[in-house]
């Protein structure tokens, strides 16, 4: 690459200009400007909404000694939203690039099925008391480890070797999820309605599920993984061109794909075991951020996806908590919008 660069340099001004044009991630300065404007606007919206969530409608006055504890309690929810936004945005965008397909979400790979299977079987075999107690750091680590191990087995089995097939791996992941779901669906049927309600609140994604105890493990894990993905951006740019192109650019296709998928697995399992299942949130975020960031460079797409995710989560929670007074349905509403967007996108697609 550098040899080529220096050759271009010696070929005079025209080529130098060509080189600078070729390395820019955006088609025009206008688009670049628009990108930065949108990014800062979205981050601002997210910050505003999270400030609103922290301070608005606080039952105690600012000078009271219990003001800080209230804010702290609300801060936990904000941090959970940050983690969710980071996990889902990075995981989905990377997944889209790696699978070379912008309408699949990694959450279909059975993490949610495993999550609900773990919780349902805890309730089923050990009773309601056990489910309520099933919350410490140990259970969190156990869940994350189980999910990562499952996806490692899946990838190692179906993606390695000469004939690894990504689509086959996806389909088998989904089918395993369906099988697990039918097992936990059956167990749920044998539950008493009160136990069912208890489980229901666990199985629907919500930041109120988040437990601050997990943060010391979850936050470093997520930050490290996200940084890994971010610094892997250049490879991802190439990988998103497809297997053949990536291979001829000298990228180790199989190894890079498995590396990315493992990072995705870590993100998805942390998010799922921290907040519960959120199937279409990542999809919603990724599609919106492709619209907002007209570039293929992941170094720009990732921050935009995060900003979109964070602002959607915080403003949705703010609106539904404080304006519409509907607290339980936030994630369901986000899912609904994601699902509708999915329908629109696939009906407009020409090829897959």
């Amino acid at each position, binding site marked *: 690459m550098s040899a080529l660069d220096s050759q271009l340099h010696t070929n005079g001004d025209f080529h130098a200009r060509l080189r600078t044009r070729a390395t820019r991630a955006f088609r025009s300065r206008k688009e670049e400007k628009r990108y930065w404007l949108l990014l800062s606007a979205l981050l601002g919206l997210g910050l505003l909404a999270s400030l609103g969530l922290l301070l608005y409608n606080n039952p105690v006055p600012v000078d009271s000694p219990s003001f800080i504890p209230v804010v702290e309690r609300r801060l936990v929810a904000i941090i959970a939203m940050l983690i969710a936004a980071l996990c889902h945005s990075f995981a989905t965008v990377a997944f889209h690039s790696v699978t070379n397909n912008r309408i699949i979400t990694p959450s279909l790979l059975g993490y949610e099925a495993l999550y609900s299977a773990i919780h349902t079987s805890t309730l089923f075999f050990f009773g309601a008391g056990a489910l309520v107690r099933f919350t410490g750091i140990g259970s969190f680590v156990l869940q994350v480890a189980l999910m990562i191990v499952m996806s490692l087995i899946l990838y190692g089995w179906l993606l390695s070797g000469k*004939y690894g*097939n990504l689509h086959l791996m996806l*389909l*088998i992941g989904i089918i395993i999820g369906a*099988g697990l779901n039918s097992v936990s669906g059956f167990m749920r*049927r044998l539950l008493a309605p009160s136990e069912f309600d208890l489980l229901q609140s666990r199985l629907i994604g919500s930041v109120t599920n988040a437990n601050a105890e997990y943060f010391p493990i979850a936050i470093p894990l997520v930050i490290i993984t996200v940084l890994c993905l971010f610094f892997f951006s250049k490879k991802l740019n190439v990988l998103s061109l497809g297997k053949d192109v990536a291979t001829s650019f000298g990228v180790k296709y199989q190894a890079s794909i498995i590396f990315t998928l493992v990072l995705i697995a870590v993100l998805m399992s942390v998010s799922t075991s921290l907040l519960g299942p959120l199937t279409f949130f990542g999809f919603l975020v990724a599609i919106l951020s492709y619209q907002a960031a007209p570039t293929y460079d992941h170094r720009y797409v990732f921050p935009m996806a995060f900003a979109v995710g964070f602002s959607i989560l915080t403003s949705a929670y703010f609106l539904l908590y404080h304006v519409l007074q509907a607290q339980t349905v936030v994630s369901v509403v986000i899912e609904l919008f994601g699902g509708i967007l999915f329908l629109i996108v696939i009906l407009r697609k020409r090829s897959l």
Partner: protein
Amino acid sequence: MVSKSAIAEVESPSQPQFSKHQKIWTIPFILAILSVVILGIISLFTGVYDIRGQEDGWNMFFITRVPRTVALMLTGAAMAMTGLIMQLMSQNKMVEPTTIGTTEWAGLGLLAVYLLFPGPTLVLRMTGAILFSFAGTMIFFFFLRRVKLRSSLIVPIIGLMLGAVISAFSTFTALFFNMSQVVESWFVGSFAAVQIGRYEYLWIIVIVTILIFMYANRLTLAGLGEDIATTLGVNYNRLILLANALVAVAVGVVAAVIGNIPFLGLIVPNIVSMLRGDDLRSNLPWVCVMGMGTITLCDILSRVIIMPFEVPVSLILGTIGAVVFILILLRQRKSRRLR
């Protein structure tokens, strides 16, 4: 896809000669029917209630056991055949009511009926399920015809995602109107509640079956794709509409009366076509019989596995079906490797 399957027909050494295909009443088929009859008899005499010992035993026999066995046979045939028809129409072996969201649409239809009419009758529920599953299947076929596909495996992936969208929508509606457990219990299909007076609508399936047999030849032609079918004198669009209507009726009736029966339409036709090749006309009876046998076997299992209680049959089918589906996929992967 067409050319691939045509090549497979020529290449595959296990493919029987065409002349053998025409004959339906072969010895293996008669054996298959016999084993289904035996399974049916076992199903008639499996259960907690002691039929021969109790005074009203034979009454009970006709109130619950006979309807249950009949319902099993009808449902098995219906789900297996709808799977076959859908696979033919979409030219994709991985398509069936569960993998393209038809069952989720039927569930949404049931929910809509529950919301619009408090305490709906069975006819109403059935109509809702049929209408919604028809719309859902049509949407998917419309989508399939519009897009160019890079891999045939992408179809079930998109279909399952579509199903997830629809069920997210159902969950939202159910949560909003406090009906989660209706949805939840619907998604677990079971024959436990079948008794006289509660299953008779399943007989509609017989009409659907007769229609499918009548149209078998034309459906086979339609399975060759729009261009070839039109050249051969088939009104393709009308046939697709008819096939989808038949599928929707079968799925809707089963959804309203029994519930969700996953994967049956996928594993039975695939196993039959592995054993016999792809000839709809002579495979249809096989698919019917194998569907009946599979679901009856699963239901007998579901009744004895935790006696005196019952496991919903959809759990057993869901688990076994998932395993068989994965095995079919892996088998395909191997054959792809050889080429």
